[in-house]
């Protein structure tokens, strides 16, 4: 029993990180109709940015804040202006292809221009572990859970309780109606891109100590985010959270009790089951066909 609880706890911590990336993914899809295949690279770049600031002499917390600022400009505003805006009118597929190209470009630029090797990354939390009623939990897992949890709850409150948040939701649900209601749609969409950028930086902060900073570190997290979003429901923010945590826990449990060889397959099987039996996702609402 102790094993299971341990597996679930550490799985939830990993899943929370998937959820952060998935959350940005879902938001982009809802508000702007963007499927971002470079989401994983959006996590990789901030990791290297933080390493850069640390190398220059900034402490971790300051590097994090600076990176947030840079990411909002480059991965938020820049991504929207340079790639999404000119392409969105061509439809979903050209944009998807462009983000695929972007993903390859970013990875290769980091590899060719900086380093093909993995680099260590400092943990935001102290080493060691806490004994909770006989179950040992590491500080890193607890810290990850708390931080990710706070961010998710904060984001939910922002979306549900504030005027701006509600306006953003309105845009996500029905862009035309939102415009008629006098909502500044363009600005709301931009906010979504900025939020996605910050979420990516947080995910990078939490995930890089274990993943190590490397040009291809985004591959796996991007894919997981992707599946988490669909499993939970592509048109629901809470869905991304559920999907991420579900994948994190199941991977751990399957890896331990069944076979570690097929651990990576867990997300896919879950995903195939979802599209077979509940294509709108576990928490999603069926979408009407857009003609």
């Amino acid at each position, binding site marked *: 029993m102790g094993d299971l609880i341990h597996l679930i706890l550490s799985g939830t911590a990993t899943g929370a990180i998937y959820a952060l990336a998935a959350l940005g993914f879902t938001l982009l899809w809802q508000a702007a109709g963007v*499927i971002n295949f470079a989401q994983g690279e959006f996590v990789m770049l901030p990791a290297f940015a933080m390493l850069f600031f640390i190398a220059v002499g900034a402490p971790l917390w300051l590097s994090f804040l600076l990176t947030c600022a840079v990411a909002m400009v480059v991965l938020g505003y820049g991504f929207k202006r340079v*790639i999404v805006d*000119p*392409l969105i009118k*061509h439809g*979903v*597929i*050209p*944009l*998807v*292809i*462009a983000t*695929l*190209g*972007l*993903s*390859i*470009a*970013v*990875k*290769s*630029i980091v*590899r*060719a*221009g900086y380093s093909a090797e993995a680099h260590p990354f400092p943990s935001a939390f102290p080493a060691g572990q806490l004994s909770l009623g006989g179950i040992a939990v590491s500080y890193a897992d607890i810290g990850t859970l708390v931080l990710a949890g706070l961010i998710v709850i904060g984001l939910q409150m922002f979306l549900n309780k504030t005027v701006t948040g509600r306006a953003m939701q309105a845009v996500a649900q029905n862009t035309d109606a939102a415009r008629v209601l006098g909502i500044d749609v363009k600005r709301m969409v931009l906010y979504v891109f900025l939020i996605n950028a910050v979420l990516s930086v947080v995910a990078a902060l939490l995930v890089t100590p274990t993943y190590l900073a490397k040009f291809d570190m985004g591959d796996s997290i991007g*894919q997981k985010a*992707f*599946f988490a979003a*669909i499993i939970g429901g592509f048109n629901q923010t809470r869905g991304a959270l559920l999907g991420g945590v579900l994948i994190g826990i199941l991977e751990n449990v399957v890896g331990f009790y069944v076979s570690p*060889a*097929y651990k*990576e*397959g867990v*997300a*896919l*099987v879950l*995903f*195939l089951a979802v*599209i*077979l039996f509940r*294509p709108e996702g576990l928490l999603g609402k069926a*979408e009407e066909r857009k*003609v």
Partner: protein
Amino acid sequence: MNAQMKTGILVASLVVVAVVASFAKRSDVYLLTLYCVYLMATFGLNLTVGYAGQMSLGQAAFFGIGAYVAAIALKAGVPFLLVLPISAIACFVVGLALGFPALRVQHHYLAFATLGFNVLVYLVMRNEEKLTGGTFGISGIPRPSLFGVSFDGPLAFFFFTFVSLIILAFFLWWLLRSPWGRAFAALRDNPIRAESLGVNITAYTLLAFAIGAACAGIGGVYYASLVEFIEPGPFHFSTSLTMLLAVIVGGSGRFFGPVIGTIIIILLPELLRSTNVSWLKFMQTWYLAVFGVAVVALMIWLPGGILSIGDRFKSKEVAK
């Protein structure tokens, strides 16, 4: 350009390739053969992407299934001409089974489903050691010998692959010209109108996807025979991505789009790698980076792919 001229150019370029190959070095012949093999898979993918308008991110999985089926069967002594249809049919059936649930719900789900499928296939190749040799792969795959003629030598095997590719391409061309194939065009251009005219969208899309998968399977057979060794690596999801980009960059939905696209992903990097021109040397490390940026730029300015340049000019002239 009339049809006769087009045919003339086509035949001439085929002859040029054959002549070049005859006088090329061993390693270049190998590369050219590899190009033909990949082209089989990308021709198939073009059917799915370009003609049926579906994004597939799992072409490498079918490529791999074809290669593994071929490796196991060829090593067991099954003749090559029998292995080809077995691999093709295997991929066709798997394609149907995978495409059915994905296409039933929502069309863009095929991309996700194929991506997931590719990762699963890769895991099976790596972990089911008894069947696939696991990470050690399968070595000593024989090259074919038909009617007493052995195609073991590099040049002989190249010509064998080259002719097979031409036959496959001709078959696809014929398929697209048939009334059945014309439904694809209608479907891509205006799915809702096509449906109202009685074209069963899902059935046609599914078939296009499965035929595309079968082409990859055939490519896989030749791949296994060419390299004489297979392991899971070349069938990773990233190969699917490269294949998809090859089709798009070349010009999806244009019959010869993959020909251009596959040059860019297979031949060009190798060419640059062996170049002695100093200003091109930086491309050896930066090739993929430039390629990625070029894809983004292409999507912004020329979403129809390289082969649509001609149309672009035409439409501008008309606009004037």
